[in-house]
């Protein structure tokens, strides 16, 4: 049995060292880590790579990018960051959990984040203007108030706006408060229905309808995003016009969107990473907000619900 133990430990060591001896290409190295795979996070990643290229760092040619994905496991997220902390020159990342793991494990390398809604709540900064010395990046607060105003403009008769909400997702609670306030200001009511997985979306939409909701402003949610096509289809069946804060969903049958261009947000972070790679200090870059895209409309979807899209 003792032999077994040594054999096992030896094997583990062998397996783990097997990958160590990768030849060094001599190129500067950038790591990019994400917590899980969603279309939003993937867009941010693509944007990041584009931003780096704009600064002259093309993956495989002038820079080596080490992509990592923790596949939704918090323990793996930590290991990923420990690996990047010693093996790359600049750590790029998207998603809150990745940022938190980096705060813990990456102390002396520059960290550039994107795809984080609230860096202060995540622990990366004491206030928005005071991030930790080796950390900077692009955060994207979602334009909730603008979204409510947009619906109010397009559908002046609406009294109740609703959304689906998964309480397990980081930092979305604040958006609901903001939506409630924006609704109250316009004399509207904001209705939230809880879902705990993408399987609950159809039922959730029916619940919204049953509660008298006349338009849906789907606040960003990874859970709901997984089933957004089903949600839009259900919305069509129920006669509920859908609005969103994610412009990439417009084509799917959303009436109108106002939101952040995620690829551009990733590119903002990528350009920062490029400048840091050229030798500038992270402390030179204040935290940036992702840029807002103007309201975009989908005339076909609007016609389906009998909504007249006013110019401007």
């Amino acid at each position: 049995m003792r032999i077994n133990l040594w054999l096992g430990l030896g094997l583990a060591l062998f397996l783990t060292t097997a990958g160590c001896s990768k030849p060094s290409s001599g190129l500067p190295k950038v790591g990019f880590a994400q917590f899980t795979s969603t279309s939003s996070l993937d867009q941010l990643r693509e944007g990041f790579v584009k931003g780096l290229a704009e600064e002259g760092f093309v993956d495989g040619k002038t820079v080596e990018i080490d992509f990592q994905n923790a596949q939704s496991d918090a323990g793996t997220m930590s290991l990923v960051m420990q690996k990047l902390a010693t093996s790359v020159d600049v750590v790029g990342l998207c998603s809150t959990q990745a940022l938190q793991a980096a705060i813990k494990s990456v102390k002396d390398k520059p960290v550039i984040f994107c795809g984080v809604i609230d860096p202060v709540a995540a622990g990366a900064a004491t206030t928005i203007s005071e991030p930790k010395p080796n950390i900077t990046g692009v955060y994207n607060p979602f334009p909730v108030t603008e979204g409510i105003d947009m619906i109010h403009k397009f559908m002046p008769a609406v009294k109740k706006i609703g959304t689906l909400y998964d309480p397990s997702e980081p930092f979305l609670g604040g958006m609901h408060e903001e939506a409630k306030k924006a609704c109250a200001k316009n004399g509207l009511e904001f209705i939230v229905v809880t879902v705990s997985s993408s399987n609950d979306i159809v039922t959730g939409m029916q619940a919204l309808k049953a509660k008298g909701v006349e338009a849906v402003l789907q606040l960003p949610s990874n859970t709901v995003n997984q089933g957004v096509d089903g949600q839009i289809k259900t919305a069509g069946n129920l006669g509920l016009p859908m609005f969103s804060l994610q412009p990439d969903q417009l084509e799917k049958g959303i009436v109108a969107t106002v939101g952040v261009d995620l690829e551009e947000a990733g590119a903002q972070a990528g350009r920062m990473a490029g400048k840091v790679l050229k030798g500038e200090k992270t402390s030179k870059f204040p935290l940036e907000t992702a840029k807002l895209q103007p309201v975009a409309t989908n005339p076909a979807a609007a016609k389906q619900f009998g909504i007249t899209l006013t110019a401007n």
Partner: protein
Amino acid sequence: MELWIGAITQGAAYALLAVAVFLSFRVLRFPDISVDGTFTSGAAIFGVLVAQNLNLWLALGIAFLVGAVGGAITGIIHTRLQINDLLSGIITMTALYSINLRVMGRSNLPVTGAELGYAVFGIALFAVAVLWWFLRTDYGLALRAVGDNPEMSAAQGISVRNLKTVGVSLSNGFAALGGAVIAQYNGFADITMGIGALVTGMAGVMIGERFMPPKSVLFAVGGALVGSIVFRLLIAGALQAGMNPIDLKLITAVFVLIALALPRMSKRRAR
């Protein structure tokens, strides 16, 4: 190097979870899925208390107690209300999801400040030692008897219901302690971190059994520690191998399979 040290430290932290699963699943033969909830509870309570600048060790102790209460509830549901063991765990786990959200006030909490560092090893070894000692006391022996043969135990005058409840409660205490230590280590507590805790713990227990056949109580409990560390080393190895990140779980699975199959295969050849 940091990666390997990190993986070993993390393995020691996850060993607390493996020890918890060992106690419920192996000793009591109770497939207790409430650890999926209490693991997060430990992390949540610990994160909130540390944010209030409470003493680190006191916060760990409270996390243990909270987990133990959760486990006791599962035990009571099962033994007093005669509800199926797996279902009792599911009920507790489901309820704890909402409670954990309430405790944290949101779904994700940064856990910064106080550092445990290498004390993680101390905590894991302490847990192994305590369980080793406990399972060899008369009370612990009765607990093992309850798992092995409840009818026989009852005939010997052991209160099967009480002992099961105590065992499951202790197990969840360890799980919550593990959640707290891991939240500290990872730097955050997240509502999703407990999903799959039972499976992760089982992986540690079973890998450990392969390397340290449970011929004595010490080997059985210590195996949970060894197994967890090996499991984390394998994940670190998969990361280091530098493959497409999409394949991470596949590579991990293959590594675990090889690690489990190799001792068996070498033994066969020796014969």
